[in-house]
């Protein structure tokens, strides 16, 4: 470890000493402004904010905003929506992606493989605005493929998709996975490709069949990457893909009972500043605690797989 003497006189040497800090400075400022100052804004959750009075001038109101939030009739439905969707998305997302990667790994080498990969990744590059259009081409009441072609073919009446909330859990599930599995599976595929082939050869010599090889070699080798994904996702348990829930559902009120999640709810309540901040704090705090908990659980079970 080099010891820099404190008696440097020349300017360039001084700059050199501080150069790391100078380099860090722009990023530091930006992170501070957009990441940490809003944290200070949490005091808004405890105040009765009014724009003319500003943050400091508004009156304190203790836990009133929190009480109002927890008393909201929709609040449990929204929390339930948020948690359920996220849990389902997390687990099915990882499950489907790993399965897909395993299946893809079985393909014999060929030119089509690259094509499948490229097409599979395509939905990831589309924004949710575009995806909302794609969904609309299916579910639009007058012209959509479902109402114009599929349902008549099955002898059923057209459905007003954007007004019936009961279909939307499935719709959102399909859309979310449609958008994500191509890309995620490629990530897992890359991880699988990194597994030492000698393991498999040894296993084959010992007579292991394909399923055993998958179960005892591939999956354990993926444990690290999967557990990191899981832990990180836990932090977002009270969050959610805003684009998915807001845009794909076209912000339709009748669908709120199954499409309103915390992030969209907070957005829709933004005019009630203290209230929305309290809800936001609720979401962030629980997410943070969940990350800590799930990380410590993983640490106790298998220390190398934890996030920190």
């Amino acid at each position, binding site marked *: 470890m080099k010891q820099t003497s404190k008696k440097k006189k020349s300017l360039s040497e001084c700059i050199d000493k501080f150069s790391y800090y100078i380099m860090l400075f722009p990023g530091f400022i930006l992170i501070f402004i957009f990441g940490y100052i809003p944290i200070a804004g949490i005091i808004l959750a405890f105040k009765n904010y009014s724009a003319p009075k500003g943050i400091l001038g508004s009156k304190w109101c203790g836990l009133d905003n929190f009480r109002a939030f927890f008393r909201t009739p929709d609040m449990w439905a929204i929390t339930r929506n948020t948690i359920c969707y996220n849990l389902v998305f997390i687990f099915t997302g990882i499950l489907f992606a790993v399965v897909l990667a395993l299946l893809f*790994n*079985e393909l014999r080498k060929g030119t089509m493989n690259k094509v499948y990969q490229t097409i599979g990744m395509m939905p990831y590059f589309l924004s949710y605005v575009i995806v909302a259009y*794609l969904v609309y081409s299916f579910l639009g009441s007058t*012209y959509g493929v479902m109402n114009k072609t599929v349902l008549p073919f099955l002898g059923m009446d057209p459905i007003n998709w954007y007004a019936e909330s009961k279909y939307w859990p499935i719709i959102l599930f399909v859309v979310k996975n449609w958008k994500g599995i191509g890309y995620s599976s490629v990530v897992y595929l890359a991880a*699988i490709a990194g597994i030492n082939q000698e393991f498999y050869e040894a296993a084959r010599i010992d007579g292991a069949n394909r399923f055993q090889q998958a179960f005892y070699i591939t999956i354990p080798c993926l444990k690290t990457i999967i557990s990191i994904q899981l832990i990180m996702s836990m932090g977002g348990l009270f969050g959610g893909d805003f684009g998915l829930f807001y845009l794909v559902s076209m912000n339709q009120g009748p669908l709120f009972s199954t499409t309103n999640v915390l992030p969209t709810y907070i957005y829709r309540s933004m005019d009630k*500043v203290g209230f929305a901040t309290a809800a936001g704090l609720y979401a*962030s705090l629980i997410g943070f605690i969940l990350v800590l908990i799930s990380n410590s659980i993983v640490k106790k079970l298998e220390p190398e797989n934890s996030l920190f």
Partner: protein
Amino acid sequence: MRIKKKNVGNFETSNLENIILHIFFFLLSITFLYPVLLVIAVSFTEQSSLLQYGYRLMPKVFTLDAYRIALGTGDILNAYKVTIGSTICGTVLGLFIMLLYAYPLSRKNFKRKSYFTFFAYFTTLFSGGLVPWYILCTQYLHLHNTFAAMFVPSLISVWDIIILRTFISVNIPDALIEAAKIDGCSEFRIFWQIVVPLSKAGIATIALFRVLVFWNDYYLPMMLISDSKLYNLQYYLQVIFLNIQILAQNSSAANSTLMQKVPMETTRFAMCVLTMGPILFIYPFFQKYFIKGMVIGSVKG
């Protein structure tokens, strides 16, 4: 549900299994492609034939009308300008700042680096929420309705910083930097003349990530922009899109004037195609960079 399928190289798959897998992936690819092709097809369809046939993969009546209208308003071209501008600014500026931040974090002799790493990383664990952020951006930073609002709040991505840091520490040997130091090189020169040129692959990867983020962003305009001259492609598309439902709900004839102002169905689809076109053309060429970056990002928590 058991996940089991085997793995291992490709030499154990029998012909039959291979065929089945190919059929499976072929069908899967169709599910991914079909909606996109449908939208493209509708954008080339005659509006009146929609009523009779609905959205079809093969247009019953082919026309370029939708595109003529979409491009004719000039709104889309303006949105393109805004999007390209904000993407370039955001990517270049953000990349520069993030690279500057990542380099010290990669240096083993930097004693305080874990504090700065944590400083950045903590923001991914806990945030102040939407409302404080919004008030900060509008009341205090006065970003409302400015061009800067399109990219400044998103300049820094902590994951990208971490990927860059990992890339630098893996790919640039300490010995090289030490040698330069012995020769009297300042840290800035080292950064600019050694680290940056040697990190081209990592920079390219993160640049692609950033371009994707800015190109696809609808959130910042949704929050901070109300001036239609500053709409970017995605947000413009969103505004047009959500208006469809407003119309559908008030489908009484009283809104015929509204109907004139809002483009017809096929025009909206044309705008959609114009928005997704560039990304769809470009991404296959950069696919492997994205994959590499994602893998590094997912493993290096």
